[in-house]
């Protein structure tokens, strides 16, 4: 894919919902905003990581706060660009490219809005290769790239720039600002050079979203199995087909945690699947045996349509197929697991990898999982030379950045839909969901 046109947005939204692994927010509003921006400013040029000049100056843009607020208080095109503009102003240098922080959910499409309005190419890559709830949960963190300076903008015209001592302070301060801004704001963060981006981002993920969406659309049109097409493309495996018989949700230290129980259909008749989630699907157990865990992708798809079913939309009676797919291998290094492994999320489990994990091509050419040695702070210093803020950006990451003990769920996450429960009611109501 060389550029993103209006015609591509539906497919990208469908694919992004799948890579959202149950979280990341419904891409519907992102799709509408991107359509509005592309209609006004024209198609967005896509740039692969390989084409990206080493001296390119990138920033990521994303929506922060509660997706359920965003569907009520709709963001505007200007608001997205305002965050990137404020960061660019603080950095005192022009931007050459826009990048995605996550490939899953609404935040795969928000950067399209900024790229269209600012007239900048969008990098076909993201920081996760999926969706995660916390802002430091990106591969650039493993490479010592800092989240700040970052900018945050609301719809009223308020903007703030945060320049913090570490990424946890960035999260804490940005979250406070987001709540005051009404629980839905746009952020721009992770300023980095092209060289840093080539090292640390997951390549090709916007194209992958578009391709997954196209596969689902074509399979439906041809009356073939869309779920099978998704599994094949992701190099994953089908874990279970069943109907949701129970959904239990509770809010623990601000997170929308919960479990869903599915009873098997077809070949899985007589079996039971337990899905554990915290914004995203994190653990899948079939008949008491753990079959897949975070950081691999656990996606729940409508059995007939192949559309992703988010943890918020998960309801009694739905008929779904649960699949697992390998994450970028760098998430399986000790440092990656410390940042986003099952123990970080509070499950005392060793990670269980999706079967067929070798076949995926989320990170062609970079699939070699780097060993622990690679993370020696002295060596992991991102390619020096780049220059958005030389004094700071080259700071090797400290223990703080990877210490799960410090990054307690109650303190820092930024992109967590469950935290800022809106006053809407229904969607988050445990009494109703657990029929």
């Amino acid at each position, binding site marked *: 894919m060389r550029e993103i046109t209006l015609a591509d947005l539906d497919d990208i939204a469908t694919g992004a919902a799948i890579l959202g692994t149950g979280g990341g927010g419904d891409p519907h509003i992102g799709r*509408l905003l991107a359509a509005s921006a592309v209609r006004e400013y024209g198609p967005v040029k896509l740039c692969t990581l390989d084409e990206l000049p080493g001296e390119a100056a990138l920033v990521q843009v994303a929506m922060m706060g509660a997706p359920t607020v965003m569907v009520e208080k709709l963001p*505007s095109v200007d608001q997205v660009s305002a965050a990137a503009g404020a960061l660019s102003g603080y950095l005192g240098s022009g931007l050459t490219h826009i990048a995605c922080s996550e490939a899953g959910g609404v935040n795969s499409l928000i950067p399209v809005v900024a790229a269209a309005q600012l007239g900048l190419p969008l990098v076909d890559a993201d920081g996760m290769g999926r969706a995660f709830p916390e802002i430091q949960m990106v591969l650039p963190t493993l490479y010592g790239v800092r989240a700040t300076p970052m900018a945050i903008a609301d719809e009223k015209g308020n903007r703030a720039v945060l320049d913090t001592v570490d990424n946890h302070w960035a999260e804490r301060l940005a979250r406070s600002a987001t709540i005051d801004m009404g629980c839905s704001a746009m952020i721009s963060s992770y300023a980095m050079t092209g060289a840093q981006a080539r090292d640390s981002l997951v390549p090709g993920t916007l194209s992958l979203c578009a391709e997954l969406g196209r596969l689902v659309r074509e399979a439906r049109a041809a009356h073939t199995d869309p779920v099978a097409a998704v599994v094949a493309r992701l190099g994953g495996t089908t874990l279970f087909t069943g109907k949701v*018989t129970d959904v239990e949700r509770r809010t623990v230290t601000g997170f929308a945690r919960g479990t869903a129980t599915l009873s098997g259909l077809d070949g899985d008749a007589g079996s039971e699947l337990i899905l554990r989630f915290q914004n995203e699907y994190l653990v899948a157990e079939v008949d008491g045996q753990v079959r897949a865990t975070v950081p691999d992708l656990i996606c729940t798809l409508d059995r007939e349509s192949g559309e992703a079913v988010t943890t918020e939309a998960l309801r009694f009676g739905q008929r779904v197929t649960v699949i697992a797919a390998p994450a970028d291998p760098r998430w399986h290094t000790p440092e990656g697991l410390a940042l986003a492994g099952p123990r970080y999320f509070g499950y005392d489990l060793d990670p269980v990898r999706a079967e067929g994990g070798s076949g995926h091509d989320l990170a062609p050419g970079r699939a070699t999982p780097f060993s622990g040695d690679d993370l020696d702070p002295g060596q992991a210093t991102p390619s020096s030379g780049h220059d958005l803020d030389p004094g700071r950006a080259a700071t090797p990451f400290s223990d703080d950045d990877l210490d799960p003990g410090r990054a307690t769920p109650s303190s820092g996450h930024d992109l967590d839909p469950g935290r800022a429960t809106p006053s809407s009611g*229904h969607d988050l109501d445990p009494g109703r969901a657990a029929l």
Partner: protein
Amino acid sequence: MRIGIDVGGTNTDAVLLDGRQVLAAVKTSTTADVTSGIVAAIAGLQEQRPFDPADVRAVMIGTTHFINALVEARRLAPTAALRLSLPAGASLPPMVDWPGRLIEAVSGRGYLVHGGHEFDGRHIAELDEAEVRKAAADMGQAGVRSVAITSVFSPVNAEFEARAAEIVAAELPDVAISLSSEIGRIGLLERENATIINAALRELAAHIVDGLASSVSGAGITAPLYLSQNDGTLMDVDFARRYPVATFASGPTNSMRGAAVLSGLDTCAVVDVGGTTSDVGVLRHGFPREATTDVTVAGIRTNFRMPDVLSIGIGGGSRVRDGAVGPDSVGYELTSKALVFGGDTLTATDIAVAAGRAEIGDPSLVAHLDKSLVEAALRRIAADVADVVERMRTSAEPLPVVAVGGGSVLLPDELAGAGEVRRPDHYAVANAIGAAIAQIGGEVDRVYAVEPGRRDAVVDAAKQEAVDRAVAAGASPSTVQIVDFDEVPIPYLPGNATRIRAKAVGELQLTDAKGR
């Protein structure tokens, strides 16, 4: 006694009930003007079982007329959407995701003004009354006849919608006004869409409701008239004039509730086999299980509460070929295309007749059909329907199956995995019976400040208010019960704010014209 009428796209069905006993049941063709079909249906009842119109205590009508008007994009009023949201929301104006032909059909115009609330009740901006007046003046010049007003987070606080409505009504006294806070849930675009649809149907609703009322009174019936709503409860005609959108899913709801009454089961799966599809829904405690995802109506995303119905393309008109049944159907051409009617197309109806399950048309015209072909087709139908029922079943508990609709003769007496299929009397007019037995409800949906130790008292007060509202709407006090209750704590708000929703329903309290 009471009369239930279901006005479908093809047929108008009517029943005369005494308690839950069916005294008379008729099927007539739906007419273009709706009302003459109803006159014919009531006359048919009178012919079958003569009654004194003064003995009728209530008439309940279920109709797909409004949803069909939207789908067919006809008779929709010129409508404006007024959104109170600036500075938010400007990039996605009203109707941004609508099909172009429907925007044209409602001559849709969108206006954005400053206003709206944050999730926690703060104001995004103060309501700009001058902007509202200016928008109203422009609407007046453009010939707008109905206005839909939507404010950000109005399900939490509707004060701006109410104030904007006052201003618009003062400027444009003749337009109809619909408020989103009275129609939908959180999710601005979906709620606004539902409100615009409602607004566009207001004129048609007034016309149809007047027509229904005059055709009923023309038959000498002076009892009150009710329309059935999506959730299986009733609304009076004044409410129906203001909220036509509340009738959208009453068809499947009535069919399911009618099946429950006919079979005496209040928790069951209902298979409604029509001409083109079989629709399967599940009743729990007498009410349909609700769908939980956004519902797209005529290409427009909305967030109505709709019954959870799964459909497959098997019905009386389904074509049968190469061992497959459906999903394509000869539809309304059944009476010319099916073999039993002298046509040349093998349909599911021909299979039913050949198997001796129904006497329709001329059975001799299917006598030549190969026995194994007939049995294979019936097996296929049974297997496909059993699969859908199995998918709708959500627990290991056995779920009895009730079959209704004209095509239900296609189903076997036993369904794999589900057991016996019950086929109650009058199965062909279950819709009209469902309308006739609909109950009347009252609802509370509000944010309460719950002080420590006061939760039970607050919950009780909310439930009592729902009960009182049901009684005020006409429910018999001794029959009212709470059927739905939600309690959602709202974080980040002082005072332990909790959103409480309670819904109560009861039997309609009936008195006839003679005061009985």
